[in-house]
């Protein structure tokens, strides 16, 4: 019965491998403060996962090259352990556990997308590991009483609320008819909640409420319904693919609405890819380079934009900017806490009140950034060159909102 011996050898080999895998508590190694992050390098969120990772890396390099983090008279440098969560929430939760339990990470950075953040948050919370996240906007993250979660971005339901208010205002304060199409994922559905609430508040009527499957790349049916029912506002959200599909088919089907509100216009490079077809699309964003916030590391938004472009070869979407901001928050918290103890740092985080190039950051008791407004911009074209121009809030408006959108027959 040698086969049994083989199995026994096999099992003991595994035990050996496991035990030799040293469980180092890697929160601080030498002069490095180790942060852990699971980001989507593969799968459907890989575009935005890449933006997130670049944003993190850009900030880490900048902070390290500008003197690092000073804690207790000693200078530390940031370092990030990355795992690829494969755009899969199950995997993300597993990796968070792994970062904390096996790699001994004591400080976490968030993944990309609300869904994955929702998957990771219970893990960090139970292990009492502070996490500063920059890409999980779901409102439900902030109603669960999480104490170790801090988000530098505004909640998802705020994305397009403003757009509805704007439409009502342009309609002379009268309610509007709204058509919406949202992808079946945590983020887009949260944006939907915001729109539904705004509609309720303004007495507006929702006449189409479609949920797009994640795999869908054809919205013709939804748009045909829009054509038939003629709403005032069409709201679409579905990450980059949703934005690109919507514009393509709206242009092809010549769908006329007074207002077209979307998300992920800059991440999908809408203005560049669709050119004139994307004109007048109104987009919600967490950040725009023309905002007048400043900090000592990146200067202002314009400078960030320029330097990011020089390093990574593309203009930073807000996903990259907010990710960079997360690192600034960490640095600030470590220095104020003047300690590496995770609970002290957590307390320092909760008292954060600072300005970064990305915006002001101040956390509510639930960990939500309440000091920063959402930005709305509209795609505007001059000749063949299209650009995103901020239209709201008025403080930074670079252009006036065009409303209603000219009909396709008149363009």
């Amino acid at each position, binding site marked *: 019965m040698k086969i049994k011996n083989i199995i026994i050898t096999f099992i003991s080999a595994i035990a050996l491998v496991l035990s030799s895998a040293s*469980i180092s508590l890697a929160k601080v190694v030498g002069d490095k403060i180790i942060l852990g992050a699971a980001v989507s390098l593969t799968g459907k969120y890989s575009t935005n996962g890449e933006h997130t990772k670049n944003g993190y890396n850009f900030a880490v390099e900048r902070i390290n090259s500008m003197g690092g983090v000073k804690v207790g008279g000693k200078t530390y440098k940031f370092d990030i352990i990355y795992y690829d969560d494969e755009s899969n929430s199950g995997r993300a939760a597993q990796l968070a556990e792994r970062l904390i339990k096996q790699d001994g990470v004591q400080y976490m950075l968030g993944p990309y997308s609300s869904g994955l953040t929702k998957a990771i948050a219970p893990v960090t919370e139970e292990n009492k590991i502070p996490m500063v996240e920059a890409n999980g906007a779901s409102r439900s993250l902030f109603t669960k009483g999480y104490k170790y979660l801090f988000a530098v971005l505004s909640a998802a339901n705020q994305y397009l609320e403003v757009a509805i208010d704007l439409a009502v205002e342009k309609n002379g304060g009268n309610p509007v008819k709204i058509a919406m199409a949202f992808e079946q994922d945590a983020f887009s559905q949260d944006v939907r909640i915001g729109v539904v609430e705004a509609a309720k508040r303004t007495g507006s009527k929702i006449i189409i409420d479609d949920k797009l499957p994640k795999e869908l790349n054809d919205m013709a049916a939804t748009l045909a319904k829009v054509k038939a029912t003629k709403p005032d506002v069409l709201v679409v959200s579905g990450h980059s693919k949703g934005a690109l599909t919507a514009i393509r088919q709206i242009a092809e089907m010549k769908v006329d609405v007074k207002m077209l509100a979307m998300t992920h216009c800059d991440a999908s490079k809408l203005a560049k890819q669709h050119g004139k077809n994307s004109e007048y699309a109104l987009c919600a964003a967490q950040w725009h380079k023309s905002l007048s916030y400043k900090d000592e590391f990146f200067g202002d938004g314009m400078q960030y934009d320029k330097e990011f472009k020089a390093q990574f070869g593309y203009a930073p979407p807000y996903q990259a900017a907010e990710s960079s901001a997360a690192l600034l928050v960490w640095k600030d918290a470590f220095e104020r806490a003047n300690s590496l103890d995770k609970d002290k740092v957590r307390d320092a985080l909760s008292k954060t009140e600072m300005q970064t190039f990305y915006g002001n950051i101040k956390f509510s008791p639930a960990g939500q950034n309440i000091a920063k407004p959402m930005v709305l911009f509209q795609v505007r074209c001059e000749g063949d060159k299209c650009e995103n121009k901020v239209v709201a809030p008025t403080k930074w408006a670079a252009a006036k909102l065009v409303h209603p959108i000219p009909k396709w027959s008149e363009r």
Partner: protein
Amino acid sequence: MKKSNLILYGTILILGLVAPFIFPGFKLQISFLWILIVLAMTWDVQGGQMGYNTFGNILFFGVGMYLCASVQIGMFFPLAEWTEAGGEKTFVHTAPQYFQGIVFGLLLAGIIPAIIAGLIGYGILGLRGHYFAICTLGLGIAAGEIAGGIELIGAGQGMTTPPWPKNIGGTELRSQFFYYICFGLVIFTFLFLQWAYKTRFGLVLNAIRDNEDKAEAMGIYTMRYKIIGWMVSAFFVGIAGGLMGNMVGYIEPVEVAFAGPTFGVFMVLMAILGGKGTLWGPVIGATVFHLFKEGFWTFFLGWQYVALGVLIVVIVVFFPEGIMGWLREKYPEKFGEVVDEADRKAQVELK
């Protein structure tokens, strides 16, 4: 029981029982391994023993997961409010509520999928070969898409499972709790299948694999056995799903629950890697696969799917018999096969 068997099982049992104390950081990791072993072993009931290559067992995994979580919540609180608006409201389970919930949840997570398997079995198990494979593939994907449209269970936003009750010990206790349930499940599944394969049931399954028409002609009512086989798989996979949902803490319809492209395929791969149609094959396959995946994945940051793709191609093209099959070919004596040396020599000479 033979002495060597006793040593083997004893070693495994002791190792399994003390593992959480020796490797405290790996508790959840090893719990996932137990779940994967259950998935691989139950897949093997169809894929290996019965010769029905199913992609549909993930259906029961997802159903079990949703059911368990829904029961845990629904027993004490209104489920619709729990999942409303992306799960904004949280109700806190007290410790007794939590444990009651999980016991009933897991039981139902086993029983209901088994019933579902019984109900749809007659229609689907009548299909043969690739039609069966594709039909079950469709079943899994359809279930995921449909679950993503049902508001009660959170639709596309997913639902969170009840958090571990406060005041009874922290995360360490939680992971130990789930570790031992998972370990218990894997032991129970293993012993049950070991027993089942020795009975007439196992023989009939093999008869179906080898030649279903002949088995039928022999007067065996094959459909009944096929359905029972599927129900057995569904039962264990459902419980595994319920546990998985609780360990991950967040259920997403197509990524966690009806995760066809990940767990759905992994269970097939693990069984084939280890050697399908054997009792130990899926266990070894799952262990090797999990070790490879968790151990080496991180070194391939971003390239891991390339590595997985290559691995799959290499496994199915070059080792379709799996590790056990390879061992069997190499050391047939150790598998209790009688090898007639003279006969083998004669064969070699003939070549």
